[in-house]
């Protein structure tokens, strides 16, 4: 007997797909280890920032007699009057380095796992609307990144409270919350980019390498082109904010690349929120930076949705 035609399901499917994806992701030990490394580094970064600030203060104390002996006016402590959140400056580096890579791995695994295990052709054979499947996958990514950053924020808050001589006002706590919200948006963009790449590429290695390459370009090549920041200096939150040399070349490349410099925009917004460095004059500023990060999310979200809805129902990946 002929079966009645079934309309693809959409209602209630998104949370089901999302929940199941999260369950599978939690069983992936490699992703968990990377996430743990990220959390450990975020907590460690707070301690490192505090320790480095203390060292500079001690250096200044020891330098004072030498400076006074010169008879010249004594310069102020370069780290004096630094806001309490400034000791978290290294977090911007860890979130834009480790966090972005964890988000890439998460986004990649969420799609690649279904393709690798051969689950995707089975899902495609069911009356399930592909947009609902894509929506569920994206929701799982956004929730997992929010969870990861939520734990990181709790770890940071505990570390900040335990650090002596670092009183936090309610405005500081609010800035910390804003910092983690912006970080969530920033990491989501990379996660969505990796999801789209995993759906688009037949080779897993290429699928993983495309967002990693994009991340490398945004993290190392763009800052060098726009402000002469050498690749390893880009790892230092202070050096990465140094003004470019006076040159027509940088006057041109800075503004031209700024609307595409996702990592640069995040660093500027984060530096302003944590108060450790003034924003780069060639950067987009707070509003521009937030707009760029939001546009990146919308663009990568739309591309991922398009890639997933057009994915062949027979598709399963191999590694080569």
């Amino acid at each position: 007997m002929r079966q009645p035609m079934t309309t693809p399901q959409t209602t209630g499917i998104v949370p089901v797909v999302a929940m199941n994806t999260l369950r599978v992701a939690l069983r992936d030990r490699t992703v968990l280890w990377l996430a743990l490394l990220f959390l450990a580094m975020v907590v460690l970064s707070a301690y490192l920032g505090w320790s480095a600030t203390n060292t500079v203060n001690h250096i200044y104390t020891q330098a004072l007699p030498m400076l006074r002996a010169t008879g010249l006016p004594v310069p102020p402590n370069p780290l004096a009057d630094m806001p309490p959140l400034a000791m978290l400056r290294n977090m911007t580096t860890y979130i834009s380095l480790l966090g972005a890579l964890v988000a890439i791995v998460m986004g990649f695994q969420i799609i690649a796992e279904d393709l690798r295990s051969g689950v995707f052709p089975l899902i495609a054979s069911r009356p399930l609307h592909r947009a609902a499947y894509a929506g569920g996958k994206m929701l799982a990514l956004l929730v997992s990144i929010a969870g990861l950053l939520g734990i990181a924020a709790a770890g940071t808050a505990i570390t900040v409270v335990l650090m002596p001589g670092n009183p936090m006002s309610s405005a500081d706590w609010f800035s910390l919350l804003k910092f983690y919200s912006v970080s969530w948006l920033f990491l989501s963009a990379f996660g969505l980019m990796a999801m789209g790449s995993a759906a688009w590429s037949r080779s897993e290695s290429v699928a993983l390498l495309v967002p990693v390459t994009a991340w490398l370009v945004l993290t190392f090549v763009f800052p060098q082109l726009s402000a002469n920041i050498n690749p390893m200096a880009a790892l230092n939150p202070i050096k990465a904010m140094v003004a470019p040399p006076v040159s027509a070349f940088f006057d041109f490349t800075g503004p031209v690349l700024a609307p595409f410099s996702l990592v640069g925009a995040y660093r500027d917004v984060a530096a302003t929120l944590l108060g450790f460095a003034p924003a780069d004059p060639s950067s987009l500023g707070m509003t521009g930076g937030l707009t760029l990060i939001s546009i990146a999310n919308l663009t990568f979200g739309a591309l991922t949705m398009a890639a997933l809805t057009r994915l062949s129902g027979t598709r399963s990946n191999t590694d080569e």
Partner: protein
Amino acid sequence: MNESLIQIRALAWKEIADVRRTKLLLMVTVFMLAASFVSLLVAAVALKADVVSYNGARELLLSLGKPPDALAPPAFMPLKLLRGFVEYIEIIGAVLGIVLGHRAAASERGRNTLPLLLTRPLSNMTFIVGKCLGNFIAISGVLFLTFALGALGLVAIGGVALSADDLARIGATFVAASLYVGFFFSLGFLLALHMRRSVHAVLLAFGLWLVFVLVTPQIGDTLDPDNQVGAGVFRTLSIAKPQEKEIMKSFKTSETLRDSVEQSSPAKHFERLSFAVLGIKDTYANQPLATVVQDRSGDVFWLLGLFGSLLAALAIFPLNVNHLKEN
């Protein structure tokens, strides 16, 4: 010719042929070349900006009556323009090594040809040596191309005439880069050969890349107090080098800790050796190459030791056929 040597040669040639067809290698190579070009271009532009700024300051001082003899121009070290170039090799070269190492095992696993290969009269050692040899030739080829273009870029973009000594220094850095990238190749190959799932192997390899190349140097960098202020804390306070050394004596423990963190990173050994050889680090500027290499022998031994231990691990650990079938 000995049977094993014939097998090694056949495996190596097959690897080179496979590598040449891989889109990944092309992608990473093009990226490394493009990044190296960008670094040279930007370094040349920044140098020109420095020269303009120096000339401006000189003219101002001369107009104020300063004698010309007191305004000696700063020494120009052309190989310093390669700083960003070396740092890109540090970051992207390691990715190249991991990608090739992973590919060498994963391509066989994906096609399930590795268990088949092992049913042939082929020893474990022959298999490893053949695979490694083919990939080392490919790595050296890519790096040679990168360094040759780097040297040409110095001449064309930087407007620098390279002496025989400069070329020897670039050659020494090329050898160090080959060892460094070879280490990451061996790491990616070892993990992809011995881990149950190849996707976990590549993720772990990238995780280790992250720790060795980015996280450890970043921690070392953060622990350096001079890096906590944009222009450097001692420069901001106008403290001269002898006084700086005197002050830093009280921070011996934290300096030792910082050095130990950096010592644990192969990337840092490659960087320290290359910066010394190319004269990027001021203390080694104008020193003979042999003296520099001798002084940085610790970094040479570290690179050789790390690379050698992974090769030894590849040779010692027997292949488990049950691990070599995808899924």
